Each structure stands twice: as C-alpha cells, then as structure tokens.
C-alpha cells in the first residue's frame, strides 16, 4: 500500500489516504519518494485558483528512488535516484513540442495537478521527465531545485544579460536564483514581501535587500 495527502476539492484540507501501490504502465517507472518540496503552485491548486484533476495528490518537487520499472524501460534501473518535475508528460508532436517549446505543449500532463504527484510515499513517472540528481545534494536539499530552482532558472534566462537584477518577493525561487546571479557576477536586489523573509547577505555587497515597493537602482 502507499500513503498520500489527497485533495478532494478546492478549499478543503488535504486528507491522508491509503491506496494500493500503483503498478507502472509500459514505459513508466514507479518512484519511492524520499522528499517533496511544497511550492506556491500547490497552494494555488489547493485553494482552487487553478483547476486540474480531482481528486489529486499535489506535489511536484519530488526526489526519490525508482522501485519498479514498467515494460520497456531501458534508461533507468531500480534504485536510481531521480527528480520528478511539474512537467510530467508532453505529446511530443504538437507544434510547440516540435519547436523546443514543450513547456507550451497542447496536451501536457502536470505532476500534482493533472496526474498524481509527490505528497505521497510513491508516484508514477515518465522516464523522459525524470532527472538524475547531482551528487552533492541530499534528497531534502535537492527538492526545491526541481521547481523553485528550475522555474526560477527559466525566468533568469528570460531576463537576459542584465547586470542588475531585482527579485520581487523573496521566496524559494529567489533564494536559489540570488545565489546563481551572484555567482555570475551580477548585482542582485532582493525585495521581500515581508520583512521576516529577508534573505541573507551573499558574498559581500552583491546582494542588497530592500522593500517590495522599492525601485531597483540602475
């Protein structure tokens, strides 16, 4: 059996449920979960700000080890440590998938939103969307990299080569991005929503902390 925290309807508390262990279908893997980050998107799912499948097991910053393989899986073995992400599956043949924009796939599946996610002891995943976790990160510290880090990284790339960055709202993504930006030699202004969330100074004067209403100096 597996255990999970399940959302039955928006606005309701998640409920601890027991279910039979899911068997991986052809080409799928089953992951025994060791850590799952809690993301603001999970909150939007639970509050009904966005609408996916119900009931659903939220969670999409999953770290675990593969404990069962479906038929035909060749790229992974039982015991491999993997990360499972928000983007859980894509169709592979729509115009977006064929033009390096699979993030905008016409028929995507999202982990913890339209397919069961990581607030659980186990989940199913597609090997194409499983990532090896680099050594040097333990499971718990790796979990926030998988959405806060990755979505943050995508935002960082889209910000181009600006030498000065303002991070508005200093949450999980910003606390990762600030480190990356400082490492790249950029100046970072962190503008937290609440004084209690102030980030720490990183590497001398490259990170400054202000208030959300402040303007980032040029």
């Amino acid at each position, binding site marked *: 059996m597996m255990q999970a925290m399940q959302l039955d309807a928006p606005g309701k508390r998640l409920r601890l449920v027991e279910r039979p262990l899911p068997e991986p279908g052809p080409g799928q893997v089953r992951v025994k979960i060791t*850590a799952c*980050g809690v993301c603001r998107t999970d909150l939007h799912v639970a509050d009904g700000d966005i609408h996916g499948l119900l009931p659903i097991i939220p969670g999409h910053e999953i770290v675990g080890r593969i404990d069962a393989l479906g038929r035909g899986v060749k790229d992974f073995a039982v015991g491999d440590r993997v990360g499972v992400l928000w983007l859980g599956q894509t169709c592979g043949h729509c115009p977006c998938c064929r033009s390096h924009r699979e993030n905008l796939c016409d028929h995507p599946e999202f982990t913890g939103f339209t397919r069961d996610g990581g607030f659980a002891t186990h989940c199913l995943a597609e090997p194409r*969307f499983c990532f090896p*976790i680099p050594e040097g990160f333990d499971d718990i510290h790796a979990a926030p990299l998988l959405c806060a880090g990755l979505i943050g990284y995508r935002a960082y790339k889209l910000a181009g080569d600006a030498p000065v960055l303002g991070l508005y709202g200093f949450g999980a993504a910003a606390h990762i991005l600030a480190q990356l930006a400082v490492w790249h030699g950029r100046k970072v202004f962190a503008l937290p929503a609440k004084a209690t969330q102030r980030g720490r100074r990183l590497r001398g004067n490259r990170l400054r902390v202000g208030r959300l209403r402040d303007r980032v100096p040029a």
Partner: protein
Amino acid sequence: MVCAGIHMSDIPGFPYADLWDECSILSVANLTREDGAEFLPLAAQVPIRTHVRPMPLGAANEALGRLRNGDVEGALVLVP
C-alpha cells in the same frame, strides 16, 4: 519584467512611459527538459545551497498554511 508564477493577482494600471523603450513584461510557463539538463548540473557547480525546512508528509496542510501566510524562509519539504 519576468513573472514566474502560475497564478497572480491582477496587474494594476501603470504609465505607458514605463513600458516605453521596448521594455517588456512576460510570464514563465512551465519548463522544458532542456532547462533541467542545464540547471541541475549548474546548481551543483555553483554550488547552490538551498535553505530547507523538512516536515512530515502528514503536515502537508500545515505547510500549505505557512506558505499562505508568508511564514516561510527558503523552502518547506515534506518527508514521507
């Protein structure tokens, strides 16, 4: 201006002059596997230090509540 959230409150009006000079506002939708293949090794190289607070799986409601109240520094992580 890059907005990296799946849901946000409405954007208030602002002077057009702030958008002039080819400034832009855009959102980030989801991610690609390419992003993952780039970022995870980079995170190890930096190395990124994530600030985490582990909580038991059964405390998922409490974790969501803390996020709702902005009472989180770094990231909450559920451990089954």
